[in-house]
């Protein structure tokens, strides 16, 4: 996928000014977050489940190499071919070779975020194959030629009118504002693609090490079609997606759909192991898994290690006030919202996504909902700190932080600056006691006023309070340390 994370501020301005988008986003509030809440009401002890989820994912990462090798051995035993790719480009090349060797013409895809990382569709199209996205959201975006704006609801930024206009243009069907009719139309359009495809490409929500299986979680059934009907199936997924056992999968599946869409379970959970049985009438004859690194292994053991626990539920973005206002495209790469603010700089390099870790109020709503307890705000702070120490912030920001540091280390000067600073601000405010502009901070004051400080500084108040208390309970300040001790004993 094209990287536009460097232009975050420009993206945001564009997204905020886009009235249609803003109206689509305003619908967002009541959706997934409310459904999650309603689902959790029925759950006995969700916190215990989150503990379990976090510890399963943390333990996997501790032995990631072992579990990957175990997965590889078991998958191969069942006839699945396992490939390893260091980068997205390498993954595309591997997939292209598989397709060429098998004489593939038509490819159907179910949702795979890793294939968005690698920009797979373009590569296959350039090689002369037809690629059809079959997840309804992804299909809409393929028609619109847009990237996804959410990891589980890729076309969440589109209204029914926009979808209907796209369908009119591409299918030649009359316009409708009836959502079920639109879904029906997509079903009719996509069915022939499933039946005609030579190759199905899917993601993999989880890899099961002890059985060598790929697990796919879907609602529409397209994931089942893509992995059942074509003669070749390739799953493309990140190396961190392993779970040791089917029991671990059972536990994680209690967390994922509830956190994502508020469902107790998704419609389909498919555990795919190996190739078509001898004599069987369905299933792929060739089955491949491409394990993609693309920046993940670098995070292990480092201060962003915990981000690899992510199970891609989307809860952090569903609950993020920043995401809800700017939409997923502003983040400029595959993963938006709080987890994107961490993964984008982590995978692509901090210099490619300088504004992303700053795009948060650190309100911690994401951390509260994350099913595997990733400390998202802490990780954003880590990245902010890195930006500063690596000199990646603008000079005036670095200078002000220096200044702040110096003041904080010199209490006398700090008190002085605070006392005169508040007076200055008070003087600058109008009769309404509000500051409408602040020199150098107009970005902040554009959208809000700052109330001028009232009364005395905290330090002045504190000193007075102490002095007042001293009058009530006199402490002899002239006593020597030993006398003081004695006095306390009394």
């Amino acid at each position: 996928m094209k990287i536009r994370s460097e232009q975050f501020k420009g993206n945001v301005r564009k997204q905020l000014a886009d009235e249609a988008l803003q109206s689509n986003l305003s619908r967002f509030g009541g959706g997934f977050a409310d459904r999650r809440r309603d689902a959790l009401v029925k759950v006995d002890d969700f916190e215990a489940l989150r503990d379990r989820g976090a510890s399963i994912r943390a333990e996997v990462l501790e032995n990631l190499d072992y579990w990957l090798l175990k997965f590889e051995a078991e998958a191969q035993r069942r006839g699945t071919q396992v490939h390893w790719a260091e980068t997205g480009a390498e993954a595309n090349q591997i997939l292209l070779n598989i397709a060429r060797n098998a004489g593939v013409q038509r490819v159907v895809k179910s949702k795979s975020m890793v294939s968005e990382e690698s920009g797979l569709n373009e590569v296959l199209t350039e090689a002369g194959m037809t690629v059809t996205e079959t997840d309804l959201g992804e299909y809409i975006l393929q028609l619109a030629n847009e990237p996804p704006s959410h990891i589980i609801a890729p076309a969440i930024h589109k209204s029914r009118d926009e979808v209907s206009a796209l369908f009119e243009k591409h299918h030649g069907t009359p316009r409708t504002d009836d959502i079920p009719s639109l879904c029906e139309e997509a079903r009719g359009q996509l069915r022939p693609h499933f039946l005609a495809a030579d190759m199905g490409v899917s993601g993999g929500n989880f890899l099961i090490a002890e059985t060598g299986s790929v697990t796919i979680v879907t609602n529409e059934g397209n994931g089942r079609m893509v992995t059942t009907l074509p003669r070749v199936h390739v799953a493309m997924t990140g190396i961190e997606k392993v779970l040791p056992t089917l029991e671990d999968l059972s536990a994680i599946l209690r967390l994922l759909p509830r956190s994502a869409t508020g469902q107790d379970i998704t419609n389909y959970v498919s555990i795919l192991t190996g190739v078509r049985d001898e004599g069987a009438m369905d299933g792929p004859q060739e089955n491949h898994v491409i394990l993609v690194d693309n920046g993940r292994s670098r995070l292990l053991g480092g201060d962003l290690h915990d981000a690899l626990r992510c199970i891609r539920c989307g809860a952090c973005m569903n609950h993020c006030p920043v995401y809800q206002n700017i939409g997923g495209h502003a983040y400029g790469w595959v993963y938006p919202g709080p987890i994107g603010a961490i993964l984008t700089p982590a995978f692509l390099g901090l210099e490619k996504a300088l504004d992303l870790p700053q795009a948060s109020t650190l309100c911690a709503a994401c951390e509260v909902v994350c099913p595997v307890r990733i400390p998202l705000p802490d990780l954003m702070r880590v990245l902010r700190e890195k930006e500063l120490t690596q000199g990646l912030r603008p000079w005036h920001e670095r200078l002000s932080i220096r200044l702040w540091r110096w003041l904080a280390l010199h209490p006398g000067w700090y008190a002085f600056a605070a006392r005169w600073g508040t007076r200055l601000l008070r003087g600058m405010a109008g009769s309404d006691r509000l500051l409408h502009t602040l020199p150098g901070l107009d970005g902040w004051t554009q959208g809000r006023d700052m109330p001028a400080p009232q009364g005395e500084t905290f330090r002045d108040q504190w000193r007075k309070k102490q002095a007042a208390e001293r009058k009530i309970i006199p402490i002899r300040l002239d006593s020597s340390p030993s006398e003081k001790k004695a006095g306390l004993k009394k």
Partner: protein
Amino acid sequence: MSARDRILERVRAGLKRPTPVSVARPERSLAPMARPVSHLLNDFIARAESLQSTVAQVADLNAVPAAVAEYLQAQGLPRKSVIWPSLKALDWFSSGLTAEARPPVSEDRLGITETFCGIAETGTLLLHSGVDHFSTTSLLPETHIAILRVDRLVERMEQAFALMQSELDQLPRATNFISGPSRTADIEQTIVIGAHGPRRVHIILVG
């Protein structure tokens, strides 16, 4: 060095140790259920229905064709079906049904399957692939009728896996957990039943 070696090398470097020779299978206590089951059958039915499956119950397998006919009548659906070969022995004809034991084509409108087991925690069906268990029967037709023996109900997913392990030689190519008719919420987060898979899932409990 291959990509595989380089990736594994970075993993080892990050974790600051060589790859362990063996790691014990995690012996975790059973994970808590999200929604405990107090009554296998009742909870299964209630939760399956909450996922828009419909449920009927009959006393024994021979009563299944009549129950199917009744359902099709009520839904106004044609009395023609593709079935799993294991269901061939049932007397479909007397209930006015044609039942063909073959994998479905896209035009087939009704698929009838057996069910490996049912999971009460979520009202879920477990079906697996096999030579006689076409995965497409529960996928391509717009209506899926699943026959499930009441004594094949378990509380939770872990038990379903244990059952597979004790009864099957190995994990089948496809293990599908099915929880109601297919659906999408990709347009304006509005839930619409009947995406690419079946629009109706009807469960006939036997026993």
